[in-house]
Every structure is written in structure tokens, then in C-alpha cells.
């Protein structure tokens, strides 16, 4: 399958990339790891008029702790994130999630910024960013994750705005991410994450709606002393997931409850 023709430009700095996006207009897309964009282009579900390749921008793949925050550069690849000692020590759930994205070949290409900007509710990083109150930093501003994911594949990013890094809180307490899928390299049919931050549980869900979901009702029940299995019953409160080839809405809600219970119980 051959993508439709497009104009191609390489940027060597964020400023240059933004200028190119300004010049090329709304139909231009940013090319990072390309592992969501290129498949969409091959299927011609996406036909951007132009691509701005940001892979050559130096210094955008940083992974560092500053104070109580973990900064992950937009071009940090999954393989870097899951093998980073810094991530393993400061936010181990992120390292574990990165190790389960796609397969080796995908992890060698796919990036933090790409996953966040793509805004796929089946992506794993958006769930973590939302439940941990991460900040999405762009060339223009800092956007809290809760204001970032707007709708299906829709984020708060403007056409000429580029994610430069994602800033997570340092959290190395009990945690678990469970990704339910039929094959090892698949997207989650449903995913559930639990992470203790400053003594309080944060709970997030993947692929149960148009955006990632923070399971506040579960968090509140746990805070009031409910057992994991009781609290997890609230995981499907307010959910209205779309059915797909792999799961009906009812089944996804069932999975949300079961996986949430397991994530909390297995967190360590």
C-alpha cells in the first residue's frame, strides 16, 4: 500500500519545525516515530499534504529528574523509556508500560511525544499522564493532561504546536498496569493502571471511551477505606465505551472492573 503524495521537510530545531508547520498549513503533520501515522497514511485514512520530520531535532529525547518531576522528551523512544534507569527508579510504572508497547521493532521507533499527540484512547501513556496529573509541554505552553485529551484522536494541540516533553510526578510506590489483549504486541482491549502517590491511589483506564479515563469513583472509594474488589465495582461508573471487533461495550465495562481490581491487588 502506497501513501498519497506529500511534501516532506526535515526540521533541525523546534523553531524550524514550527515555522515549517506555519508555512505548510493545517494539512501538515509532524512525523516522529511514525508508527501510528504511517500505517494510517498507507491505508489512506490520513492524507496529510505535508510531513515535518522532527527526528533530527537534537536534545528532544531527554529523560531526567528535576526535583520531584520526571521530564521525558517528546522524541524519547519506548526502548529508551523502558531501559532507562532514571525511569525505573523515579516512575517504574512508566518503564513497565513502555516495555509492553508494541514489539521490539515498534519500541525502537515509537516516541513519547508521538503517542501523546496522537491522542489514541487505546494508547498507554495517555492513561498514565491523565491519572498522574502530568503536564504536556509544547513550544507554546504547558497543558495539564486533564485538559489535553479532548475527544477521539483529538487533543488540545493547535496545528502549529509541537509536544516537546511530558512532565510526570516522581512516584515509585506500589503500582501496576494491566493490559488485556489477545496477542502480546496488541493494543489494550482494555487497560487498567493503579499507582499510589503520596498515600493515595490513582486509577486510570485505557480504551474504554474516546479519551483516557481517570477512575475517580474508584479512587474515592479506596480513600474511604473500601476493599479493592468493592472499589473496583465503580471502575465502570459513567463509562460508555464503543464496541469493536474485539469487545462489546458490556464486556469492556466488565474488563474495566476486573482489571482495576487486579491492578490494585497486584500493585507493588
Amino acid at each position, binding site marked *: 500500500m502506497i501513501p498519497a503524495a506529500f511534501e516532506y521537510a526535515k526540521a533541525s530545531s523546534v523553531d524550524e519545525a514550527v515555522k515549517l508547520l506555519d508555512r505548510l498549513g493545517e494539512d501538515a503533520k509532524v512525523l516522529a516515530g511514525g508508527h501510528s501515522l504511517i*500505517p494510517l497514511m498507507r491505508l489512506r485514512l490520513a492524507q496529510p499534504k505535508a510531513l515535518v520530520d522532527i527526528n533530527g531535532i537534537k536534545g528532544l529525547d531527554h529523560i531526567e529528574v528535576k526535583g520531584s518531576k520526571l521530564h521525558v522528551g517528546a522524541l524519547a523512544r519506548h526502548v529508551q523509556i523502558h531501559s532507562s534507569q532514571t525511569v525505573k527508579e523515579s516512575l517504574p510504572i512508566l518503564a513497565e508500560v513502555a516495555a509492553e508497547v508494541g514489539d521490539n521493532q515498534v519500541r525502537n*521507533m515509537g516516541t513519547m511525544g508521538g503517542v501523546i499527540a496522537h491522542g489514541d484512547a487505546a494508547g498507554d501513556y495517555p492513561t498514565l499522564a491523565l491519572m498522574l496529573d502530568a503536564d504536556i509541554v509544547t513550544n507554546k505552553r504547558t497543558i495539564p493532561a486533564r485538559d489535553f485529551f479532548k475527544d477521539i484522536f483529538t487533543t488540545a494541540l493547535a496545528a502549529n504546536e509541537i509536544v516537546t516533553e511530558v512532565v510526570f510526578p516522581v512516584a515509585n510506590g506500589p503500582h501496576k498496569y494491566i493490559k488485556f489483549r489477545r496477542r502480546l504486541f496488541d493494543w489494550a482491549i482494555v487497560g487498567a493502571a493503579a499507582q499510589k502517590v503520596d498515600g493515595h491511589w490513582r486509577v486510570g483506564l485505557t480504551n474504554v471511551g474516546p479519551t483516557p479515563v481517570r477512575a475517580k469513583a474508584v479512587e474515592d472509594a479506596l480513600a474511604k477505606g473500601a476493599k479493592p474488589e468493592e472499589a473496583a465495582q465503580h471502575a465502570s461508573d459513567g463509562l460508555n465505551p464503543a464496541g469493536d471487533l474485539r469487545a462489546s461495550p458490556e464486556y469492556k465495562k466488565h474488563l474495566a472492573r476486573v482489571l482495576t481490581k487486579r491492578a490494585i491487588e497486584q500493585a507493588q
Partner: protein
Amino acid sequence: MKHKVAVTINGRKHEHEVEARLLLVHYLRDVVGLTGTHIGCDTSQCGACTIHVDGKAIKSCTMFAVQADGRNLTTIEGLAKEGKLHPIQQAFWDEHGLQCGYCTPGFIMAAAYLLEQNPNPTEDEIRRGLEGNLCRCTGYVNIVKSVQSAAKVMGGASTTAGRSAVTAGGE
């Protein structure tokens, strides 16, 4: 508009003018003429098109040729040296790690990357390391055996010949 691509493939330099939309796998097969890299699913799942770019295994159907400009590529054709099969190729032969053979180049390139990262993998680590490659004949048992056998040859008896062959284009 065409773009210049200058790449080193299996130690040899190549330079072409290509359309931006040309996928790397089509560049390798149709422009350079290296047809050992196969197109399987065309949806980034099957891994038949796996090659190494700067020593890292990637799916060449999910990268544009223009992105490879200035990089070092190794394809299945770059593994055998002076008519002698790479230890992983030999192991796939010895252990019958293939049935129809269509997925084999991708599996061998993925296995080469796996053994670079982890020269002595367990069976589970091999299966996980090859998760990005599909064999529609479902010949996984012998594929795993082949990688185990190659790991012994490459790690045990000395030679890093196998490994340096894998990265010859990349270093």
C-alpha cells in the same frame, strides 16, 4: 518533488532521488534490488520486512526511505559473509526453523537484534523478543529452537563473527 537519499546498505553506499512517500521496504526491493526483505502484512504487524537501521531492528514498511538518509542499514543479504551463512541463518537451516520461508528474513533479522541485546536468552525471552514477527505456518517451535541453537554457537564457542557481521553495516 524528489529527495536525495544517501545510505549505506550492507557496507555499500547507495544514492538515489526518491519520492517522499516511497516506503523504505519498497526502496530496498524496487530501487536497490534487494528483494530478501519481504512485505507481509503491509500493516506494521508481521515483521517480515524487519531490517536493522543503525543497529536497531525496525519494520521497513513503517519508515519512509527519506528517513533513512545518512543511516547504516543491514538487510538479510548482509548477514552471510564470503559465502558462509551467518550462525543464525545456519541455525534456521539446521533446526528447520521455517516452513514456507516467507517470514524467515524478518525472523532472522529480529533474532539477530535480540541476540545482540541478550546473547543468552531464555525460551520466554526469545518468544517475547520475536513478538513482532508472525509466522503464518505457525512454525514457532522450530524458530525458537533455531534461535537457541544460534545463541549457543554465537555466545559459546567464541566467535563474535556472527555479531560483527550483523553490525558490519552499522559501525
